[in-house]
């Protein structure tokens, strides 16, 4: 299992370097906020953790609270990250008609 996961990890790093080194400086801020949103995929991990927690026989309420905060943080990261990137990229559109 670990070898399989490591392979995925290393290949993803190479792909990341390859793809991202082509992004021009003009787009570095949107790139940063888009990748920010992508690490929001931790939300998937948070949901998995909630499932594991409720699948367990007993758990302390404080852990439930932590799980809830984890999901909330993950969701802030995903939704906020994509929304703010979208907003920024709208400004990078080529203007078809002069707006005045």
């Amino acid at each position, binding site marked *: *299992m*670990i070898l399989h*996961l490591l392979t*995925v*990890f290393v290949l*993803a790093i190479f*792909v*990341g370097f390859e*793809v991202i080194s*082509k992004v*021009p*400086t*003009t*787009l*570095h801020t949107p*790139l*940063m*906020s*888009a*990748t*920010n*949103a992508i*690490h*929001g*995929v*931790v*939300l*998937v*991990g*948070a*949901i998995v*953790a*909630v499932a594991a*927690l*409720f699948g367990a026989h007993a758990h302390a309420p404080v*852990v439930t609270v*932590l*799980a*809830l905060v984890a*999901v*909330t943080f*993950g*969701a*802030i*990261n*995903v*939704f*906020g990250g*994509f*929304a*703010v*990137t*979208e*907003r920024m*990229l*709208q*400004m*990078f559109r*080529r203007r078809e008609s002069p*707006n005045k």
Partner: protein
Amino acid sequence: MSSTLTTLLDLLAIALFILGLHFLNAPSTSRFGNRLAMVGMLIALVVVLVGTLNVGWWVVVVGIVLGALIGIVAAVRVKMTAMPQMVALYNGAGGGAAALVSTVELAVSHTHHGELDPLVAVSLVLSATIGAISFAGSIIAFLKLQEVMSGRPMTYAGQQVVNAIVALAIVGLVVVFIWHLGVVPAWAYPGLVVGALLFGVLFVLPIGGADMPVVISLLNSATGVAVAITGFELSNELLITGGALVGASGTILTVAMSKAMNRPLTNVLFGAFGAHAGQEVAAAGGPQNVRSVSVDDVAAMLAYASKVMVVPGYGMAVAQAQHSVKALADQLEKRGVKVLYAIHPVAGRMPGHMNVLLAEANVPYEALLDLDAANAEFPTTDVALVIGANDVTNPAARNVKSSPIYGMPILDVDKATNVVVLKRSMRSGFAGIENPLYELPNCSMLFGDAKASVDALVAAVKEL
């Protein structure tokens, strides 16, 4: 859903992330890219939600609704000038989530059995540590950028020793945790998390505002790595890939930013740059011998130029002058003046900060030149209009070996026929370094708030 289907859909999500990032490499396709990544995320979320249906659903629903609400409202409301701190906050949320997922997983596995699987033990403790550091560091970066806290480097005697002790304590606890496969005294894990949070705070405190582009990139990278490691803990390829992509991207940006300042990363992180330079300048003493000009002089200079290069810096962002700058460019272009913009990689507080602000003001991205392209243009430029930029235009970086910024690639504004610097006062720049540019014979200063000055220029050019 069968596990094959789940795996295939996760693979599709991963492919969409990568394609999304690929399409971010040009302004014209970038929105499409962002949307591809969004679709990937949607698929990933639907897959995991269907797979965990009915198990603790209220926590998931409440969390997602709450998080989405907070995230989207903040994204819509935030001003473009405040983008660096916004990104820092989202980044902190991701790091915090990674640390919390590990904490919950630890609690769950402790109710089941004693020792953790070695892979889980290693990844759990690392994800919690890095996630917590990134969370706390991002919050401090946010507070500094929002100017709730001073943006100046905060230093005290023995700071490096304190940081080193905290770091060693963290490493010690991590090793103990792994060695005993998670079967450690009850205080050890909370102690580790508190230590990591403390370290996050301590390591960002001494870093000054001008170095924020590096810190933000680094924290972004750290959260990516924390998420990837969380993926190892949960044996989830989606998290591993997503996290690794971000880790790579953050690393590229961190290196690019350090290079643009010609300072090794270690110097940015541990150098507390600019903490003491202020006193040295004061000691060197005396006001500089500079020439101050009026708005009308500058307006005439600009209006009768054939090529003007605008050099924006953090001062433009602070004064929110980007729309006024665009208005001035429109006036000049009406008169046949060619207006270009020279963007230094570390101008502002995050990578690409100036580009976003100018894009907000509808400046076409074709007019934005990067360092090399801009420097090729300066010798044929009539007027270089420096708006709230300082250190990135300092010619001392080229030839004064004793200067703290010696060797940093700069914008060669001094090679333009005329240089006009818009500045609030003669206070030195963030790094507290005197700028000999201001004493050059072809340089003149227009003092005042950047936005007010540019607005006055617009009016004056109109009347010519």
